């Protein structure tokens, strides 16, 4: 399986930006990082697991949909899988456009849609050694 959107290695934000056309005028960059808590419980690490081949397809579909909805914006996305420490980047999205409003809108749409359609899951590890899969059906993040 060739990987375009998923990576087991640390996300190289500089190379993601280099894949776009920053000369267009506006570059909006979103980087999601592992937070130190969730729902009031301390988190020490997160393991991201993906249905890899389907996640690649869903992210390609997402990229196509973004191109349709934001024709002036070029979007590049990368999601990391495997075990990450607090502060590590789990996802990065670069949106480039002639003007900032479309770049912000496309970047926001990309992360919001990614969270609802791409088959990726995360298991949180806690200081006491326990761990659990994040159940977004019970704790939706509601676009925060």
């Amino acid at each position, binding site marked *: 399986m060739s990987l375009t959107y998923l990576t087991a290695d640390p996300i190289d934000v500089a190379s993601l930006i280099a894949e776009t056309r920053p000369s267009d005028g506006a570059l909006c960059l979103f980087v999601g990082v592992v937070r130190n808590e969730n729902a009031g419980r301390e988190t020490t690490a997160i393991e991201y697991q993906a249905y890899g081949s389907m996640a690649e397809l869903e992210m390609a579909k997402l990229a196509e949909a973004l191109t349709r909805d934001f024709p002036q914006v070029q979007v590049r996305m990368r999601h990391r899988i495997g075990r990450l420490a607090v502060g590590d980047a789990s996802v990065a999205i670069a949106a480039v456009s002639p003007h900032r409003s479309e770049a912000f809108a496309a970047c926001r749409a990309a992360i919001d849609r990614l969270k609802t359609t791409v*088959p990726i899951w995360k298991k949180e590890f806690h200081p006491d050694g326990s761990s659990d899969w994040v159940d977004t059906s019970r704790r939706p993040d509601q676009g925060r």
Partner: protein
Amino acid sequence: MRVRLLHFASFRDAVGREEELRDFPEGSRVEELWAALAREVPLFARFAAMPPAAVNREYVPAGTVLRDGDEVAFLPPVAGG
């Protein structure tokens, strides 16, 4: 008819394996495969409705008819980002 069933995240933990081959009668639908699993796996029996399903890496409706060799997965609530 034989399908390849994949399990992920909390569903993988509940079933205890990453994937398996399953035989079903010709013409079986995705929802019938889920019903069969729900009879075996206590976690699945607690679901009021079938979770999102994928056949050959595409989201499909519950009534989708399965074919020999299909790759099927039932997906826990996704949590990327």
